[in-house]
């Protein structure tokens, strides 16, 4: 099976009617898929359906050919990791942040994997720069040993220098065999990074 995820005629309702309606698409197991579209088109909403931070009001979302609702939701979320737009750090050190994801995690190896200096391992997480915090968010996601990574505009809160580094890191994770779904409003980012582009049109 080449598809990792599939949306089948999905509808998600908002307060003033559907945010997404009749959405059907597949996302490949291999490579990086960029989800692009105008602001308010429902990209984030669609991304969140993949690890059940939200459920569709109609239609189905499939993971490896099976409805995501048939999996244990807590295990599903560990397999399909979600990293949001704004980096989130938890109280405590960088090592403690990683241990929250996986108590037996090798913190130093994870920091090396996301390009953070290993000297940061005992640093308080709330003392990191925004770029470092986003790398920590990625390291925490990787600590769960996921099969897929959902990234919701992961560079939108970063400066240009940090942005380039994170883009390289994400591309490297995809090349390493991880299914990556990237929501972005930036056509340049989609064109340069993605193996496939999924256009989401605003619901009329």
């Amino acid at each position, binding site marked *: 099976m080449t598809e990792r995820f599939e949306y089948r005629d999905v509808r998600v309702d908002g307060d003033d009617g559907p945010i997404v309606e009749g959405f059907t698409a597949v996302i490949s197991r291999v490579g990086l898929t960029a989800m692009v579209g105008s602001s308010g088109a429902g990209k984030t909403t669609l991304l969140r359906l993949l*690890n059940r*931070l939200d459920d569709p009001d109609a239609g189905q979302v499939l993971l490896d050919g099976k409805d995501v609702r048939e999996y244990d939701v807590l295990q599903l979320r560990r397999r399909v990791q979600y990293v949001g737009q704004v980096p989130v750090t*938890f109280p405590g050190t960088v090592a403690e942040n990683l241990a929250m994801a996986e108590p037996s995690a090798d913190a130093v190896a994870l920091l090396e994997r996301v390009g953070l200096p290993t000297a940061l391992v005992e640093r308080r997480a709330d003392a990191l720069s925004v770029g470092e915090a986003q790398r920590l968010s990625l390291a925490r996601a990787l600590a769960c040993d996921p099969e897929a990574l959902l990234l919701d505009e992961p560079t939108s809160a970063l400066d240009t220098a940090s942005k380039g580094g994170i883009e390289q890191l994400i591309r490297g994770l995809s090349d390493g065999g991880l299914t990556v779904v990237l929501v972005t409003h930036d056509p340049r980012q989609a064109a340069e990074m993605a193996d496939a582009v999924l256009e989401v049109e605003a619901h009329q």
Partner: protein
Amino acid sequence: MIVATATSSSSSLSLSGSISFADVGLALCLVAVAVVVSRVRQVGLEGDLLVATFRSFAQLLAIGYVLDYVFKGHGALTLIVLAVMVGTATFTSGRRGRLVPGHYAISAAAIALAAASTLGVLVVLGIIPTAARAVIPLGSMIIASAMNTTSLVMVRLRDDLAAHRREVEARLSLGQTSHQAASPWHRAAMRTGMLPTIDQTKVVGLVALPGAMTGMILAGASASEAIRLQLVVMYMLLGGNAFAALVAGEATVRRLFTSHHQLVRSLRRVAI
């Protein structure tokens, strides 16, 4: 056993039965002071002060007649009086927490369970008698206190989860359950609900002589009798509030997440 009547003979002065409605009318001059202060400093609370004054008069007058009736051989009505109190407290607390799904049910459960369990323990242990004269006043204290605790816990927990929903969802994304993901804010909300009573208990006698004790002393009881009752009241409120905070916190977490460990949509769409 504490008999909830002030019958001590040790005092030389008792206010019991000596305050007439004319005296109450004279005390209104102090409300007038508050109205003038509000007016002069443009605080804008004159209307609220008048409403509060009128309501307190009407409500206490009414409950006075009701209690007189119940105490004079109609003890079977005790449960109805307590039920009305729980209902009123539920409505008040539920309205305060109206942004929480199922707010009235949460308030009813927290307040009723706090009152029933606390009064139950006091009666079963033989600390208070089952007489209406004991159960109604003590029940009203628990209910009023549990009402405040329930409101504080519901509002704080809902507001915190909405404000920190990115952190909450980051925790959920790591495979945490809704209870695990909400735990830092759940704890904070319970502390918010329980701390006022704990602080009040810590300073009792040093900062203020609390209501039950003051009432007994004014009615002519000895200070030591009043103290024993007050201690029971304080311990009762500590227990009752802990119970209310526990039930309100658990129930609020359950209603702010779906059974699939997702934040409810109303919470996800709050601007942050």
